[in-house]
């Protein structure tokens, strides 16, 4: 199975990189961009009997290592 994991900064955490990216986009003429938040995308292959079990394991991975829950949120999507 293929797990797609998105890790994003929590709303109350400032994202200085996102602000700089937003400014650069504006300077390229994308005037309608208001807010940019940069995150991480992790893709991993996992052997599992069920999507539910794979999702549970990925949630565990996020909580133990992949995300820092003080500053980040995560979401997990499992594909066959």
């Amino acid at each position, binding site marked *: 199975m293929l797990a797609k994991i998105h890790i994003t900064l929590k709303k*109350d*955490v*400032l994202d*200085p*990189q996102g602000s*700089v990216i937003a400014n650069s986009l504006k300077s390229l003429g994308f005037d309608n961009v208001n807010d940019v938040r940069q995150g991480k995308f992790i893709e991993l292959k996992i052997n599992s009997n069920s999507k539910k079990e794979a999702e549970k394991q990925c949630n565990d991975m996020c909580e133990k*290592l*992949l995300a*820092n829950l*003080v*500053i980040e949120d995560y979401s997990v999507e499992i594909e066959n």
Partner: protein
Amino acid sequence: MKTHVIVFPGSNCDRDVAVAIQNIIGSSPEMVWHKDSTIKQSDLIVVPGGFSYGDYLRCGAMASTSPIMKSVIENANKGVPVMGICNGFQILIESGLLQGALIRNSSLSFICRDIIIKPTNTKTIFTNKSKISKMPIAHNEGNYFANSNQIKEIEDNDQIAFQYCDENGDINAHSNPNGSINNIAGVFNKSKNVLGMMPHPERAAESIHGCDDGRNIFESLLS
């Protein structure tokens, strides 16, 4: 005093801190490779600065899963003094020994210069001889963050160790090099036997360094 310094792939302040311990505390520290699994008896464990595992994923995240960290956590929970400097602070946060997070400097730049810090709680084993001190910082991710509930808890428990300040000891936005909440430069765990700090006392520990203000942290551990 029996002392230990942990060495990860990418540590680069391990020998500096070993020299400071040797010269100030008078103990020759045992250098412990991160793949070792136990520290049997210690009076001080230092997790040094550097760029462990190339800062992959998040600074300190990989190192926090090293075999030796289980033993560091066990020792910390038994009350053994554990000190993390710079990347060592990041590792202690990632291992759950200290609260909060260290995120990218607000300027998005690597900062390497002298700063001034003020001890916030001087009733601990690490800070009983501390005063307003000058020492260097050298980091890209030293911007201390915790949400408002966590900050309140840390403040209520006197867990703030050091705050960035100016030469007069005033804690203000101007003296904050990296955007840390409340100018926080270092924190303790609840029982105050674990200290994490971004500034480098071991790089300001002898007159040859141009400043020896950092000695007071090591001297505090002697009393």
